[in-house]
């Protein structure tokens, strides 16, 4: 059975085509104003990679913020259920906590023994604690994401960033730059502040022995290591972290 899962996020749109539970094609592209067109494009790309015809796809399941905009989809599910499904299959069907740092929000989902969502938390409508925050800060420090990450990793003495609001943090960072604080320390401070925000969300859950990390944020090594430091516990990054939600949508029964 061939199914397609499309995750229309705020920053990127992802598509995974699954053939009997095995990924046969995937594609990713930036989300733009015309959500439907982007989603269609990414679906076609994935179809190409899988080497199948569009008619062969039996079900298209869309998820993410733009899920209702994609008219081709047969079903909609929320990204929370999708990430739980995907994460559960990817970690050998065991109880776990999944942290999904996306572009617009951060979700922490507790998955039960049977793959059900036990509880979940999402951050508020502000950008702090999300991938968007890191992107803005990388811009302020005049570097890209990889550079930002490696800057932070090389710091010995992270500064304390007090603001959690991205707008105020920006001005705080600028004032730190003008007081000639090393860029490494600023970057480290920013990662620390976001990690502590995610950590407070994680602490509200009770079973935190197995934590998995996915979403775009999981691709940033510095975020992972600072988060591990903050909660003093190992975190496992799921394979292909950006596609976990789309995969979860595709394997939904």
């Amino acid at each position: 059975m061939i199914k397609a899962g499309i995750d229309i996020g705020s920053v990127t749109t992802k598509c995974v085509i699954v053939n009997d539970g095995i990924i046969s094609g995937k594609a990713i592209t930036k989300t733009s104003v015309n959500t439907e067109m982007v989603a269609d494009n990414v679906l076609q790309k994935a179809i190409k990679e899988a080497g199948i015809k569009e008619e062969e796809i039996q079900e298209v399941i869309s998820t993410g913020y733009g899920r209702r905009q994609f008219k081709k989809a047969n079903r909609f599910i929320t990204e929370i259920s999708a990430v739980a499904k995907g994460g559960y299959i990817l970690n050998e069907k065991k109880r776990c906590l999944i942290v999904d740092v996306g572009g617009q929000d951060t979700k922490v989902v507790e998955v039960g023994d049977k793959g059900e969502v036990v509880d979940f938390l999402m951050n508020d409508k502000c950008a702090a604690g999300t991938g968007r925050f890191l992107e803005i800060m990388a811009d302020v420090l005049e570097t890209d994401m990889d550079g930002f990450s490696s800057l932070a990793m090389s710091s010995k003495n992270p500064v304390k960033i007090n603001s959690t609001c991205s707008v105020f943090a920006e001005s705080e960072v600028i004032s730190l730059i003008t007081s000639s604080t090393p860029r490494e320390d600023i970057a480290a401070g920013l990662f620390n502040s976001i990690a502590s925000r995610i950590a407070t969300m994680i602490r509200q859950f009770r079973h935190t022995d197995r934590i998995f990390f996915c979403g775009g944020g999981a691709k940033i090594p510095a975020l992972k290591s600072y988060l591990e430091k903050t909660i003093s516990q190992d975190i496992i990054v799921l394979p292909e972290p950006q596609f976990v939600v789309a995969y979860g949508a595709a394997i939904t029964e």
Partner: protein
Amino acid sequence: MKKGNGFISEEYLDAMKYLWGKNKDISFDYKKYTEKYRNLSGLKGMEFFYDVIAERKLKTDKPVIGYFCNSVPEEIIMAAGAVPLRLCNQDIHCAEAGEEIIPGDICPVIKAICSGLQNDIKPDILVIPATCDGKVKLAEILSSAFDNIYFIDIPRNSDYTENIDLWEATYLKFYEYLKEKFKVKISRKELLNACKITNERTSIFRKIYKLRAEKTGIINAFDYFTITSASFLIPASDWTKHTEILYNQLLNREIKTNYRKNLLLAGSPIIFPNFKLLEITEEAGCYIAADILCSSYGHLFDPVKIDEETEKGIIRTLTLKYIAPSICPCFLGIDKLINAVIENVEKYGLDGVIYYNLRLCNVFELEIPVIRSVLKDKGIPFLALKTDFSREDTGQLKTRIEAFMEMLE
């Protein structure tokens, strides 16, 4: 309370007067809004309530006493021959206009009240209880627009054993004030009569509350919260009469429902124009089977049960209706809230709890971790939502509520 002219500047007064003068322009087109919800259910008995909301006029020749919150004894006002009018306002346009005179980072309810009242009627006396900090300062701010403001200072510990005498004294003071103000003699008979009227209202409200909880889909959330919002604006006896008509219609109503889950709504109040959350829940197929909000449950659920029919005895019992059982987070005593949540969930077999937290109302937010942990122990699914009157976060709320529904299934 003293009028604030002495220390409030002319400029501020002008701003205030300007706002209050134009309050008709800034508020919603209520008629249009009521039409939207009115057609959804098509219940005949609802017409009256939607008309009340749309017109927002109180037809009375008696003096009108406006008040906020749930801690002002309506019975005393009614016994004094006046009409109580609850003025709590959740109009987004009012809230935005209110930012002209008070800072933006304030609870939207306070901002909305500051910018003028929803009603065309200007009350003769405005009664403001010291429930939250915002209301306390509100009394001062509004004193520049109002001549007669009465401030009820309520102790914040809602434990009967500790504060009952203080409450009694507070209410007695209010009682004496009204007697003096209107130059009336209030006898026991009038107090008892007023209690009878509100008790009748309570008993019909409880019937509707029970019916709604037991029969999924019998009344949709818009209709229900319109009824409760209307109870702010019309005399209790009118409300009772029309609710009874509605109740009899509901009993014979055929239900065809596509609701997926029955939930309990707890947290901040929901008053008419602010139906954003309800729109989302209805769309997601979640039935608000019960609620413990102060705008409906808190306002209408508790009766006055008089032990001693003496004047002081009645007033003492009134405090046991308004303050002691209050689940307002401004009071000390979260156990009451938790009891109410668990009671409703267990009694009516509900699937989960949504806790609606009005942004910038910190007391509500402070309760969330406690409730979350208690309900987790009990195995009751719980979702906390933080939002305000604006519609920009509709998408996020939708995701959360839909995910919550998926989680329950």
